[in-house]
C-alpha cells in the first residue's frame, strides 16, 4: 500500500522552542497524499499549516523550530533522515514549493529567466544556456511571452509574478507540489486564473499537490481530498465530498457557517466564538472544546483520536461527541 502514496506523514510533531515559551505548532498529524491526488489543508492562521509544509522539505527554521517526532516518507524515503546532500537533491526536484507572496518570492536583482533556469541547471545538470532555453519554455507554459525571460521581477504584475513562481516550482517536474496559500496575495479574478492554470498543469504533468489555504472556495475548486487542521491537529479529513457535504466536526461546521450564503444574502454570518487557543498553552483534551457549541465535560479530558466515520473508508473525524451514537451536528439533522 505504502508505495501508492507520494507523501506519507506519520505522527509529525513540531515545536518552536523559544526562551519564553514552548510553542506546539504541530501536534502529531498524519497525512497521506496519493499519486495524482490533490489534498487541501485547511485551517485558520496559526493552525500549523505552513509548519507542516516546511517540515516536508525539512526546512523548519532551527532554532527555534524542533521536529519532535514523526516520519515523513517521500516516495518511500524518510525526509527527516536524509543527509544534507540528499535534501538538496530532493528539494526542487521531487518536491517544489510555491510561496504565499509572489511579490517577495522572486529575487529582485536576477532576471526571471535566470531564476527559473537556476534550479533546472542544478537538478538536470544542464549548462546555463540550455537551462535558460528551458526556462523560456516554462514561461510559455505558464502563459508568459518567451521574450520576457530577460526581464526583472519588478517589471511584472502580481499575477504574472505568481505565474513565474509556478514556473520555477514546476521547472523540474516534481512529484509533489506544495502550494502555500498561492492565491492569498492576488485579487479574485487573477486568483481564478492562477488556480485554473495550476489545475491544468498538475493534470498535464501528473503531479500530486498539497494545497494550503484558508479559503474553502479554493479547496472546493481544486482539491479532491481535504484535511481540516485546528491548533496543530487534524480534526477532520476525507474526500472533498465527505467534508463539504457530510461534515462531521463542529469546527468544520463553524468554518462553513462563517461563509456568506450566496442564496440568502440577507442572512447574518455566524462566526465561531472566541479565539484559537495559544499554541504554547493548549487546553487539555480537544483544543476546540472551549469554543465548541456542543462541548461536554468529556471533551476537555482526552484528546479525541481520528476515527473513521461509520462505514466510510475515506472520512475521518476527531470528535469525542460521536461516542454517543445519537449525536449529530445541528446543521445536518439527518445525521449524515
Amino acid at each position, binding site marked *: 500500500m505504502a508505495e501508492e502514496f507520494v507523501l506519507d506523514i506519520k505522527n509529525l510533531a513540531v515545536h518552536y522552542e523559544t526562551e519564553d515559551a514552548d510553542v506546539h505548532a504541530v501536534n502529531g498529524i498524519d497525512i497521506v497524499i496519493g499519486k495524482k491526488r490533490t489534498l487541501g489543508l485547511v485551517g485558520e492562521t496559526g493552525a500549523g499549516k505552513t509548519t507542516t509544509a516546511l517540515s516536508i*522539505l525539512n*526546512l523548519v527554521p532551527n532554532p527555534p523550530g524542533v521536529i519532535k517526532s514523526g516520519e515523513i516518507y517521500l516516495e518511500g524515503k524518510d525526509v527527516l533522515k536524509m543527509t544534507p546532500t540528499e*535534501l*538538496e*537533491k*530532493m*528539494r*526542487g*526536484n521531487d518536491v*517544489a*514549493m510555491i*510561496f*504565499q*507572496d509572489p511579490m*517577495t*518570492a*522572486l*529575487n*529582485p*536583482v*536576477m532576471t526571471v529567466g535566470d531564476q527559473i533556469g*537556476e*534550479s533546472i541547471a*542544478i*537538478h538536470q545538470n544542464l549548462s546555463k544556456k540550455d537551462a535558460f532555453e528551458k526556462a523560456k519554455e516554462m514561461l510559455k507554459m505558464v502563459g508568459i*511571452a*518567451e*521574450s520576457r525571460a*530577460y*526581464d*526583472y521581477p519588478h*517589471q511584472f504584475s502580481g499575477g504574472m509574478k505568481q505565474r513565474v*513562481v509556478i514556473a*520555477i516550482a514546476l521547472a523540474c517536474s516534481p512529484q509533489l507540489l506544495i502550494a502555500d496559500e498561492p492565491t492569498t496575495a492576488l485579487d479574485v479574478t487573477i486568483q481564478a486564473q492562477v488556480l485554473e492554470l495550476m489545475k491544468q498543469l498538475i493534470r498535464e504533468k501528473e503531479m500530486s499537490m498539497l494545497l494550503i489555504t484558508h479559503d474553502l472556495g479554493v479547496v472546493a475548486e481544486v482539491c479532491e481530498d481535504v484535511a481540516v487542521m485546528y491548533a496543530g491537529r487534524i480534526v477532520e479529513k476525507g474526500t472533498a465530498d465527505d467534508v463539504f457535504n457530510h461534515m462531521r466536526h463542529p469546527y468544520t461546521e463553524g468554518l462553513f457557517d462563517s461563509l456568506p450564503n450566496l442564496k440568502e444574502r440577507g442572512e447574518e454570518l455566524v462566526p465561531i466564538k472566541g479565539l484559537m487557543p495559544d499554541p504554547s498553552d493548549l487546553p487539555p483534551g480537544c483544543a476546540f472544546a472551549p469554543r465548541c457549541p456542543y462541548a461536554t465535560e468529556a471533551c476537555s479530558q482526552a484528546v479525541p483520536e481520528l476515527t473513521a466515520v461509520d462505514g466510510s473508508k475515506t472520512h475521518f473525524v476527531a470528535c469525542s461527541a460521536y461516542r454517543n451514537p445519537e449525536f449529530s451536528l445541528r446543521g445536518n439533522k439527518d445525521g449524515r
Partner: protein
Amino acid sequence: MAQPKEIKNQYKKRTLFQETWRRLVKNRGAMLGLGFLVLLILAAALSPVLFNYEVDVIGQNMQERLMAPCGAHWFGTDEYGRDLFARVIYGARYSLIIGVGSVLLGLVVGTILGSQAGFHGGVTDSIIMRGIDIFYSIPNIMTAVVIVSLLGPSTVNLMIALAFSCASSFARIVRASVMTIRDQEYVESSYAMGLPTWKIIVKHILPNCLSPIIVQITLLIGTTIISASSLSFLGIGVPAPAPEWGALLSAGRGHIRDASYMCIIPGLAIMFTVLALNLLGDGLRDALDPKLKK
C-alpha cells in the same frame, strides 16, 4: 500572431546599471566628482609618458630650488628644485593605487567575514563581530602604524595596513544587509529549490547587498587616501623620494612661511580628490536607492 513582437517593443528595457547611470547623470555634484576623478585617473595613468621619473620627478636641480609657481613650473619647485607639478601628478598614482588597492583588499576580506557573520548568526556572528569591534576600538592610524612598523615601510605594506580598517567597515555593512536579506522569501524559496548554501549566499544574498557596498567603496577610498597621506606625512608611509601627497605635504611643512604653495598644492590635491569621491559616493547612494526614484 504578430502580437508578441509588438509587446516586446513596448518595453524599454534597462538593466540596474543603466537605471543607476541614468539617475546619476542628473546629479550635478556626482558628475563633477566623476569628471575630476576621470581626469585624475587619466593623468595618473599617463604620467610615466608625460614625465621621466628619474629626471622630472626625483631628479634634483639645485639652481631651481624653491621657485614659486610660474610658466615653466606650474606648481613651482621644492627645496631640491624638483618640479612640483610633475610630483603632484605622479603622486596621484600612489594615492589612487593605495586607496583602491587597500579598499579592494578590505572589501574581499570584509565581505567574507560579514556574510558569514550575518548569515549564520549565533556563535559565528559573536566571534567575528566581537573581533572586529576590538579592531574598531583602536584608532585606524594606530593599527596602521603598528602593522607598517612590523612589516617595514613599503607601498604594499601600507596597503595591507589600511586594508584592516576597511575590512572592518565592510564586514559591518555586509553583515547588516545580509541579516535583512537572509529572511526574505526568495531566499527561503531558493532553499526549497534545492540550491546549496554557498550558492544562495553568492547568487541571491550578496547581489542584493550591492548598493550599500558600492557606496561604501567610493567613500572609503577617500578616507583611505587621507589615512595613507597621514602615514606618509608621519614618515612611515611610502618611502622617500617617491612623491606621495602626504610626503609632499610633510616636505613643505618646513617652508610653510616662505613657500606656502608647497603645502597648499598637495593639500588641495588631496582635498579635491576626496571631495570628488564623496560627491560621487553621495550621488551613487541616491541613485541606487529605489525609494528616491522619480
